[in-house]
């Protein structure tokens, strides 16, 4: 059984591995500090954001560990944005290969997302440092947090399938997506605490959190940083059905995306 799986996906696995290695090698080529930048970049960005939001804007000043929670939100949002943005252009930017050789196209998409995953891990490492400085107490619930990362990943992958397929035929898609992402960013309670929204209207907060990214970020904050962070479940006063909507959305987007991509991918070579 295992060998059958391996032989069916052998080519994909070989290719995925090689594309990831290549991308990683190319990323910091010629820079003196190389891979270290993957750590230094988020580190300095966080220090800047920390000062801006905590000392100047004073957003979320009443919330324990808000700066760290905000950074976590930014990290998860960047991950989502990186996977979808790389995914969107991935098929078109690899057009040269697609026109010359037949291979499973989803590998290109996966390769792009793996480099985003590596970045995420490095970023989370930096977050860990900030959590330690901020003396955040980790509870057992922290073990649940990878689930939310997986949720964001699957959602982003599903969207990438759809976006990259559309982008092959409609080259305006990247601009449209850029605008949508801008709107989503401010609607996802990344740089402001969702409790600010809850104070005004619990319903609006509820609607905002139906977006899987916003919901996952809130849940990750709750499990990792501060257990009183409002989540979709807590705002909906424990209504499991409502809390299930974003999950259903993620699954639906992924299944539709994979189907759509698979159906269209044989036409990529003549359209890219």
């Amino acid at each position, binding site marked *: 059984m295992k060998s059958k799986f391996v032989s069916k996906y052998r080519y994909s696995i*070989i290719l995925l591995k*090689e594309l990831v*290695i290549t991308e990683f090698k190319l990323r910091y080529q010629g820079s003196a500090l190389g891979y270290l930048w993957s750590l230094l970049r988020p580190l300095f960005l966080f220090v800047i954001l920390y000062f801006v939001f905590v000392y100047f804007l004073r957003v979320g000043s009443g919330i324990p560990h808000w700066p760290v929670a905000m950074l976590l939100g930014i990290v998860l949002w960047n991950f989502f944005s990186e996977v979808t943005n790389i995914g969107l252009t991935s098929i078109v930017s690899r057009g040269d290969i697609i026109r010359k*050789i037949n*291979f499973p196209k989803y590998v290109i998409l996966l390769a792009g997302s793996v480099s985003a995953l590596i970045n995420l891990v490095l970023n989370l490492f930096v977050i860990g440092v900030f959590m330690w400085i901020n003396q955040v107490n980790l509870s057992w619930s922290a073990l649940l947090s990878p689930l939310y990362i997986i949720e964001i990943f699957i959602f982003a992958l599903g969207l990438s399938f759809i976006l990259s397929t559309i982008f092959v035929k*409609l080259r*305006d898609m990247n601009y449209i997506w850029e605008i949508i992402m801008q709107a989503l960013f401010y609607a996802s309670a990344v740089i402001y605490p969702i409790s600010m929204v809850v104070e005004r209207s619990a319903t609006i907060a509820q609607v905002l959190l139906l977006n899987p990214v916003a919901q996952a970020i809130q849940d990750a904050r709750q499990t990792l940083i501060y257990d009183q962070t409002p989540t979709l479940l807590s705002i909906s006063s424990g209504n499991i059905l409502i809390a299930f909507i974003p999950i259903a959305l993620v699954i639906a987007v992924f299944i539709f995306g994979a189907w759509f991509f698979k159906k269209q991918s044989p036409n990529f*070579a003549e359209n890219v």
Partner: protein
Amino acid sequence: MPENDNSNSDTVLSVSHVSKDFHLPHHKSNSIKSTIINIFKRKDKEVDIQHALRDISIDVKKGEFFGIVGRNGSGKSTLLKIIAGIYRPTKGTVKTTGKLVPFIELGVGFNPELTGKENVYLNGALLGFSRDEINAQYNAIVAFAELQDFMDQKLKNYSSGMQVRLAFSVATCAEADILLVDEVLAVGDADFQRKCFAYFKKLKKDKVTVIFVTHDMDAVREYCDRVVLINDSKVMAIGQAGKISQEYTRLFTDASDDVVGQESTRWGKGGAETVGIDVSISDDLITIRHRIVSKYTINNPIIGIRIRSASGIDVTGTNTKIEKIDTGVFKAGHERMLVWTMPAVLADGEYYIDPAIVDADGITVQDWWDEAVKFMVTKERHLPYSIDPGFNVEFSNN
């Protein structure tokens, strides 16, 4: 086709009733604006359907060296891409048995920023080799490419010949059941070509199934067991190499009977076009005035002429690349004139000029016009050959 009546048990490639249409919208609607306009103006959504292939059926048996020949634009490369699984056929099916490795182009995925070594692994992966498999053959690959001292250098520092050698070397380690080769031989220097031919001989000896797309009738006669001739998107003939290569040559001779200037002997993207050719002949010079109008701006195109005799023999020709002339920018809508001169060495007779305009990459044909113009050379004496340089004959006094 009697060839197909044999038992099918050892058929490794079966193409049955394959057709391929390309939909070419007049203005490719890949922006929102045009898409929206097209949605509302359904009637205007004119789409040109180009029938690249019509009802192609081919069976290739294990161990066969099978050629696909045809003129430019006949659809042979499309057929190869369908066999390779790059394009999906509009109709019909392709069945292959065993591992198929395509050499549609050498060095697919090569990245100039990576070292030679890294590129070997990347290119190898695209051809389906794992790291371990490459490791096992790595020394052989490097030795075959003769690049031992360069493997840790970036590919961008390689000469183009070195890149081709490396790519070919990776490709040759493929242990394929079916190999697809698309005119790879057209590139590289003589030394490299000799290596390629040696490799093909080895493939033939090892009874590897090879599908070979080419223009080169000498190669066809030498290597191919059977050949299919594709013309005008259809199978024109399938059979023994010798017979088909004759037919192919006849196809070209027939074409040369066409009326001068007919569209059928002209092809290309049309971004720049030959609009006029004037030939004037003096006692010692032939002057060809070549007028070109470009529809859009083209940088440094290669412009060439070829002179053919009435019997279809290529007499001579040259292009701006050979002459090392920088053609510069051809601005959209402008007309430019190129003046070719040569000593009046052509013998008495009728000649044709084939002008061509090709992009700087040497591949994309903007305008290729066979027999655009006919001219006469009249000399007092007649030679049965095309060149009359003027001979001097005398007995030596020994």
